[in-house]
């Protein structure tokens, strides 16, 4: 390596490490605060290593009034699983149909594309969903609107079109129905793509909170993200999310940091193993065309 090459390498590692620190240090700091003992937190001595070892904040969160945390966790898992399965069914079906020819396909294409470019907006949606469909305060409003993203229909369709048409023709001659062709030929042929879009749908359900904020009345259908917002971002802790039973109460900092850790932990634990699906998904949207 030449001297300038060595310089560049050193500089490169340094710059990238610095960038990574902006991600790692805050995460470690929050983890450390959540696990540190009360006095260290109050005196502001915690950096990225816990001082003392105190897991009471975590117990406090688990034992929040009426088991709000566990209930919320259950809701989030339910919405994510039901939403993702439903979304895959709707998306893959639509993509399959759009890869075939049928009367009125031009119209359906237009019908799909309009929704990518134009939306009614928050308030019209809210009025329609609550006054007309009566979906306020229901699980349905947390699941149904997210079931279909036309963008993923496009991604899946382009994968389906890469399947050799001869397979479908042979199947038709053997008397296969459209449903056979969808479930027995198409789905098995595009499993990696299905896995990738499943991840995107799952992530968006797992991270959802806005519809909880505008549609839910009580805390019984909250999602984890919304619970975290209630714990960390409101001026005063609502009765719903106050820690119960422990006297004296832990410093708010500990409690809030523990909440951040508990809400973020599942995603941070899982994402290194599924990142390749996201990369694939993102690229298949970009290289199309």
């Amino acid at each position, binding site marked *: 390596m030449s001297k300038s090459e060595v310089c560049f390498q050193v500089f490169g590692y340094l710059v990238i490490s610095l960038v990574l620190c902006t991600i790692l240090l*805050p995460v470690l700091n929050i983890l450390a605060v959540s696990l540190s003992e009360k006095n260290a937190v109050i005196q502001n001595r915690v950096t990225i290593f816990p001082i003392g070892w105190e897991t009471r904040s975590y117990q406090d969160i688990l034992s929040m009034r009426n088991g709000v945390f566990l209930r919320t966790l259950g809701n989030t898992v339910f919405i994510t699983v039901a939403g993702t399965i439903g979304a895959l069914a709707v998306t893959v079906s639509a993509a399959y149909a759009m890869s075939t020819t049928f009367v009125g396909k031009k119209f359906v294409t237009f*019908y799909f594309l309009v929704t990518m470019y134009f939306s*009614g*907006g928050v308030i019209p949606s809210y009025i329609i969903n609550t006054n007309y469909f009566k979906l306020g305060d229901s699980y349905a409003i947390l699941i149904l609107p997210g*079931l279909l993203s036309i963008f993923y229909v496009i991604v899946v369709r382009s994968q389906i079109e890469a399947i050799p048409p001869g397979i479908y023709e042979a199947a038709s001659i053997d008397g296969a129905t459209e449903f056979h062709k969808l479930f027995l030929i198409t789905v098995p042929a595009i499993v990696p793509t299905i896995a990738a879009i499943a991840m995107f749908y799952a992530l968006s359900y797992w991270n959802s909170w806005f519809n909880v904020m505008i549609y839910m009345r009580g805390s019984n259908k909250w999602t984890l993200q919304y619970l975290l917002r209630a714990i*960390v971002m409101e001026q005063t802790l609502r009765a719903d999310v106050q820690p119960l039973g422990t006297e004296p109460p832990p410093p708010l900092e500990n409690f809030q940091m523990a909440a951040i850790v508990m809400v973020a932990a599942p995603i941070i634990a899982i994402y290194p193993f599924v990142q390749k699906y996201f990369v694939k998904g993102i690229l298949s949207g970009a290289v199309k065309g």
Partner: protein
Amino acid sequence: MATIGAAATTRKKPLLAQLKLDLPKYVILAPAIILLFMFNYMPIYGVLIAFKNFKAAKGILGSDWAGFHYFELFLRDPNFWRVMKNTLLINIGNLLFGFPFPIIFALVINELRSKKFVKFAQTVSYLPYFISWVVAASIIRSILSPSTGMVNNAIKFFGFEPIYFLSKSSFFQPLLIISGIWKGFGMSAVYYIAALAGIDQELYQAAAVDGAGKMRQAWHITLPGLRNIIIVLFVLQLGSIMSIGFDQVFLLYNPMLYETGDVISTYTYRLGFPDSGVPQYSLSSAVGFTQSLANFILVFNANRLAKKYAGWSLW
């Protein structure tokens, strides 16, 4: 485009017979069509609220017409022009700083020798993409806290006064731009890293043999290799210049920061769901509709440009 099922439909059939043949396809499409009808087309019909004095009791059709009253109302509202200005300024900041960041990150990472380190760096860089804005904003608020945040601890360590990042409106736009970069650069860099991997390595060797230095190689080989993806992503980002993600702003701002931080999406939200007072559904819908319309024109043209200059098309 390959037409699947061509064998069955080559002979032209009478319409009715063809419709009967296509019936299973309509059944397969039905859930998607119904969902779009419910959650996309009904709200578009609901935009009528913007042109009416909407009263929930009278319903959308039953409410009295207001014409363009609510459009005139928000055009005269100084707050509207403030949120327009903020939305544009933040987006321009994103284009200037947020857009090049992942390109530089990808270029540097691409040159590093240790593949293990590169893999680690990429994995870490994806982390902010996977967490929600709620988690991200919680982290940002906590590290910026003037009393206990690690950023201010560092500032205090060097003997300076702590900075109240989240109550000074002059800091807020840079904060949005930086936190936006922080959350998205890892995944955005994916496009460029993939494009870099696609460049023929022999070109570099040939250039080196011809005596071209690193800079000339970067200029004549690397940049042309990235050209298309840069154009596509730039044009698409230009197309969203009128919109800023609601979550990021909403979860980080507070009334002290409206001056620089209030954007169209948060303004529309607060009109419809005010902390106190009567919801202004019609006014909020009018602002939202105007933004949708502007977005539609911008995104539509952005896609056309992307197709024209880089051969990229969505459908």
